[in-house]
């Protein structure tokens, strides 16, 4: 059975997100259970004249890796993965899983060691995409494991995903272009600001954003998207944040996180659940204790927290502040093998000040 919405989805991904052209070397990465969407993307890429190649993962493979690999295997940098990231023109990543918790019992240190070996790959990926040599996009195939986390039925969850991607609209590409225009105004205002202060219950954090660029995330690199973000000046973050939503990294959930920053660095980190994992991740490398990204979610088609970062960080009326690597296109310079987005709800009483002026209140921008 073919869901015709997937054809529409594939067209948005191949043409709007990636801008695939004749002769492009395109890598499609995904779990094999995303087959129905991968088939459509593969076919659409061929129609666009690109050369699609698949890099599929099989369910359970990561778990097998972590449970079997010895040190020389955990720290190994695959020359194939490196060669790919140095040579491809387009990268489509499609998330899917049978079990979002299959790595729950893996030693976080083991995961941290393996992640560190990916630093060079990540650096190449970031550099090439910042230079415009590589266009990439990340999306997610709706599957039961995510529906379960979202506390929805499969068909409700499919609708949730498709709405978030605006595939329910007659012309999704036009809808995303309109998001682009709206967000361009937010970015323009924020680019004039030197200092940002975010305030809500349990949170009062300030940072310098002078000279940094706000990026308009308009659905091309993430589908769905709907956020504006930058990288704050690395040693400027001061104050305290209490994250209202659980933060999820590598399949683990950490609840009730509070971070205290001094001169940009996390000097205190507590959590109600999963504090050990939080500490282990912050200890991955030097950069893991610094903020790589500050962002505002603007996708009001996403209202519900579903324990899935691709959607949660876009919730219209939230802010997320990520520890770890920054995106070079923002001007951010923090380097780390971690990039952990943590989200806080601004819809009830949250405020953002730019150079002391209120520009955002209760989950909405208030630009004059």
């Amino acid at each position, binding site marked *: 059975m073919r869901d015709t919405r997937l054809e529409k989805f594939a067209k948005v991904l191949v043409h709007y997100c990636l801008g695939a052209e004749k002769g492009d070397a395109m890598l499609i990465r995904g779990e094999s259970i995303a087959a129905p969407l991968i088939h459509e993307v593969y076919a659409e890429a061929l129609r666009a004249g690109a050369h699609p190649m698949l890099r599929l*993962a*099989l369910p359970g493979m990561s778990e097998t890796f972590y449970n079997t690999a010895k040190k020389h295997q955990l720290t190994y940098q695959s*020359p194939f993965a490196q060669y790919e990231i140095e*040579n491809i023109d387009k990268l489509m990543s499609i998330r899917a899983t049978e079990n979002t918790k299959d790595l729950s019992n893996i030693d976080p240190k083991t995961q941290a060691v393996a992640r560190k070996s990916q630093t060079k790959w990540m650096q190449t990926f970031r550099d090439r995409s910042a230079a415009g040599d590589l266009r990439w996009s990340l999306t997610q195939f709706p599957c039961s494991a995510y529906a379960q986390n979202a506390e929805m039925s499969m068909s409700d969850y499919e609708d949730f995903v498709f709405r978030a991607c605006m595939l329910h609209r007659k012309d999704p590409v036009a809808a995303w272009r309109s998001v682009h225009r709206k967000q361009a105004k937010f970015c323009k205002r924020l680019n004039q600001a030197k200092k940002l202060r975010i305030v809500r219950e349990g949170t009062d954090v300030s940072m310098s954003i002078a000279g940094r660029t706000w990026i308009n995330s308009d659905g091309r690199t993430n589908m769905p998207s709907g956020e504006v973000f930058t990288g704050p000046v690395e040693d400027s973050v001061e104050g305290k944040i209490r994250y209202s939503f659980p933060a999820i990294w590598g399949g683990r959930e950490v609840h009730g996180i509070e971070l205290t920053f001094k001169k940009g660095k996390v000097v205190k980190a507590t959590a109600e659940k999963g504090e050990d994992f939080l500490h282990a991740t912050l200890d991955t490398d030097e950069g893991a204790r610094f903020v790589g990204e500050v962002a505002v979610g603007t996708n009001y088609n996403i209202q519900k927290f579903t324990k899935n970062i691709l959607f949660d960080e876009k919730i219209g009326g939230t802010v997320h502040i990520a520890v770890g690597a920054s995106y070079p296109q923002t001007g951010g310079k923090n380097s780390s093998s971690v990039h952990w987005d943590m989200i806080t709800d601004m819809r009830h009483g949250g405020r953002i000040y730019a150079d002391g002026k209120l520009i955002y209140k209760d989950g909405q921008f208030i630009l004059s």
Partner: protein
Amino acid sequence: MRDERYTKLAEVLVNYSVAIERKQLVQISGPTLAEPLMTEVYRAVLKAGGHPATRPYFPGHSEIFYALAKKHHLEYVSPLSKFETERVDRFITIWGDENTRALSNVDPEKQKLRSRSNRELFHRFLERESAGEIKWVGTQFPCNASAQDAEMSLTEYEDFVLNACLVNLKDPIAAWRKIHNKQKRICNRLNKAKTIRVVAKDTDLKMKVTGRKWINCDGQANMPDGEIFTGPIENSVEGKIAFSFPACYSGREVHGVRLTFKKGRVVKATADKGEDFLHAMLDTDDGARRVGEFAIGTNYNVQKFTKNTLFDEKIGGTIHMALGASLPESGGVNESGIHWDIVNDLREGGTIYADGKIVHRDGKFKL
């Protein structure tokens, strides 16, 4: 549910067939439906200290590719594939399909162009293999599509496949070593021969094998295995052969293939069914009309023709000849974008002569 036999098969593939050493780069490719075996192979490679790179693919993608591919797609050789062909130390290929006939209606011209584009990669692969830089093994995951071709239930077919691989035995690796020793004696005998003649129903074919080497296929490159082969001198094949079994290639079947050779070249080719496809394949390139391999199947655990070359060419008591590329380790020098094995039954009334002496009759060696 894990079938322990896949764990055992994976250990044979990893520790015997390609004998992985610590830190070797191992490419594991196969269809997603072979997940139960692929996962075990992945685990076994990690246990052996290797670096596995898994390359699963969707069984239906070739069909999508051929349906949509334009000329530049058919001619494209991915630099990523080139890079891997240069760098991988060990290749483990798992075959399996949802539908072994998915490509039945693809234009043979498109497939021909694709084979031609891949020729350089294939050539480089063979070159590295004969230089001893890499080892490769191909195996079959028992799936319904193959069971259907074999006219068996999936359970019966699983037993067929795993028994052919000797996984039913307590120590399959020891059993394969024993086969190695037995076949070594046969190869030693045939290495002394200058000419081979095969006589069977509607078949009388001669070829020179002077200076060529007989290779002992003992489960290292194919699993299952059980054959010995050589590459005849390219311009020496003379006579005719009528193949008792259908010739299968990329999901196509050609029935009743009859070939006439002159000076090593196919000068006449007929078939009862699929003759157009046979001719298109022979026209792939110049080498496609010559014999790249002559072989004798020795796996008596494989008795039944199942329309799958991996098994059929091993049937104890058969011979097969491949049109196209020779395997350089035999001393063969034929080059082609194809390598098409076609099998002929010798179990009832077939005879093989080496320099005029009977060495094989009714499917059994007479040494």
